[in-house]
């Protein structure tokens, strides 16, 4: 494995995370820069830099032929796709397989079976894992969607077959909603994932989004690395995750059964990499298979923090046929508690994206904080990319300690020049239901912490801005 040349077809914090693992393992990390991001901070951790020509994602991070050319030109041995972009694209992993290039991810068949949600549900069912009722295949027309909606009963969820991370999903309370949203979700699916196919499924009320981390090698060994609670969401996108799940709590029987269910799903597709099986859990603690993300997940760090397992490094070792860091499921244990805040360039109240230019960045963190990010002073967040610019992760001896640390860390994270959701996170971290660990995916919608974001003007903020500008006038130091 040592010396292998690996191309990272991604950007931002995940490209940094992957490059770190490659360097540590003695591989050559090759990063790319594009014409709409000529100075990407992830290059800091890449040993070689390659120009991926193009001005938008279709021309660059989603352009398979262009990427295959780079692979040829720069004698690449393997590719890490990160998350999003081509991370779960069957054609891509097959194209690589044809050329004998190592795809750092699961085999194409697993990508295909779990990527197509209709098939993945079938797989789960056959593996004996319950699934949420819904369309058994792709739904091509509004009429068909409405028909299914009436069969399984509204509310239903319209979701992109190729989607993930909550993108390309919209809930529909009635037929009218389906009519209004169908085309839009198709467009989002196409622009976001390059494929417009849609699914319809039952929309469970007050559900918990709980997912299980899977890590498997090429020799048929499939392990779980316990669960993550991802129920704090806005627009079906996670903004806070924690591990272990406070909803499962000390119920080791439930923990074991959901983790075992995840392993069953993974085995059913001969899974052979890092991946995540997502479940939806009702208030009755019954859980249903939702989907399997056949890639490294945004929120993988909280699992790394509580288990000590380096998921990215092991994912790479697995891809090159190397043994994992452990020999049996019993080697993997939970110690402590971890919480992750997704730091996004967005309005903390409307929670809408707010791109712009960062002009000030300072951190004053307690011990036990991990900040995976791609922020630097003068970093410009463009509308081309995801608004998530960092992940603030706290690890503590228990949930109370982790909460104390992440609260203090949020206070110490200063990003000036753009709107961020840090203010919203501060409200949530001090909100009683969250403190109790008592929340479902409806948390944001029902508790509405965004409405408690302080909107009182503090003239001191204006004074500090003046001070900063004046200081800058005199060379930046007094």
């Amino acid at each position: 494995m040592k010396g292998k040349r690996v191309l990272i077809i991604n950007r931002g914090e995940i490209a940094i995370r992957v490059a770190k693992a490659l360097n540590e393992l003695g591989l050559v990390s090759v990063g790319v820069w594009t014409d709409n991001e000529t100075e990407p901070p992830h290059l800091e951790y890449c040993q070689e830099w390659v120009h991926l020509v193009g001005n938008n994602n279709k021309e660059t991070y989603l352009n398979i032929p262009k990427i295959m050319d780079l692979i040829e030109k720069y004698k690449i041995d393997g590719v890490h796709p990160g998350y999003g972009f081509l991370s779960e694209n069957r054609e891509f992993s097959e194209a690589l397989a044809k050329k004998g290039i190592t795809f750092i991810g699961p085999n194409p068949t697993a990508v295909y079976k779990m990527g197509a949600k209709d098939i993945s549900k079938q797989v789960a069912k056959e593996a004996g894992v319950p699934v949420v009722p819904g369309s058994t295949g792709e739904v091509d027309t509004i009429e068909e969607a409405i028909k299914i909606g009436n069969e399984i009963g509204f509310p239903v969820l319209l979701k992109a077959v190729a989607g993930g991370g909550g993108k390309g999903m919209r809930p529909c309370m009635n037929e009218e909603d389906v009519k209004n949203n169908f085309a839009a979700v198709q467009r989002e699916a196409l622009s976001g994932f390059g494929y417009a196919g849609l699914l319809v499924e039952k929309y469970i009320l007050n559900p918990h989004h709980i997912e299980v981390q899977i890590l498997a090698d090429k020799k048929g060994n499939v392990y779980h690395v316990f669960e993550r609670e991802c129920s704090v969401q806005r627009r079906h996108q996670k903004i806070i995750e924690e591990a272990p799940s406070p909803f499962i709590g000390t119920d080791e029987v439930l923990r074991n059964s959901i983790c075992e269910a995840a392993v069953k799903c993974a085995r059913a597709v001969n899974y052979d990499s890092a991946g995540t099986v997502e479940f939806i859990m009702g208030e009755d603690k019954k859980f249903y298979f939702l989907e399997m993300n056949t890639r490294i997940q945004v929120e993988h760090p909280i699992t790394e923090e509580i288990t000590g397992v380096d998921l990215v490094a092991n994912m790479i070792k697995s891809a090159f046929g190397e043994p994992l860091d452990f020999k049996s499921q019993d080697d993997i244990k939970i110690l402590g508690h971890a919480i992750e805040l997704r730091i996004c360039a967005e309005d903390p109240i409307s929670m809408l994206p707010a791109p712009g230019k960062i002009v000030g960045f300072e951190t004053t963190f307690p011990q036990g904080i991990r900040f995976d990010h791609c922020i630097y002073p003068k970093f410009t967040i463009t509308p081309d990319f995801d608004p998530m610019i960092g992940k603030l992760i706290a690890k503590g001896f228990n949930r109370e300690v982790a909460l104390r640390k992440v609260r203090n860390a949020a206070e110490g994270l200063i990003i000036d020049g753009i709107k961020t959701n840090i203010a919203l996170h501060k409200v949530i971290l001090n909100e009683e239901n969250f403190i109790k660990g008592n929340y479902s995916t409806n948390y944001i919608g029902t508790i509405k912490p965004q409405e408690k974001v302080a909107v009182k003007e503090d003239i001191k903020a204006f004074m500090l801005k003046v001070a900063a500008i004046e200081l800058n006038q005199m060379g930046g130091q007094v």
Partner: protein
Amino acid sequence: MRYYFINQEMKEFSLDVEFHQNKTMEFKYEGKKTTLFLKSVAGKNYFSFDGIGWKKLAALGVNEVLVSHSEMYKVYRGFKPSGLNKGAAGALVTQMPGKVVKLMKKEGDTVTKGETVLILEAMKMENEIKAGADGIIKAINVKEGQALDSGFLMVEIEE
């Protein structure tokens, strides 16, 4: 030196500041005086309102925008700009950079308040831009596929 802060709703703050050589700043705001202490230690800048408690001053101050909670203020040093025109209910202005995905109306169409006029995509998200008032579409200044900056006047509705 006088500073002016003005947000999109034309809410305005103005501050007077004097920089003293002893590394303090004297602020005057609504007649009240405030002293700000500044220090550079080990390459970082710090501020204090009492000379005892210190905090990091993060901003490089290179931008002319202040983000306070979720409001953005344009900052004007030493002068007050003339003729900033407020976005009326009938004027649809981009609140963030984005791309026009679909126009639902054309010039001359009648629209009712809340009706979707066009769809703007920003950060892979589709946002329905709705009419802020009943009226007739006087002008559409964008076309489908066009990329827009923040603050761009897309559509004008005659009430």
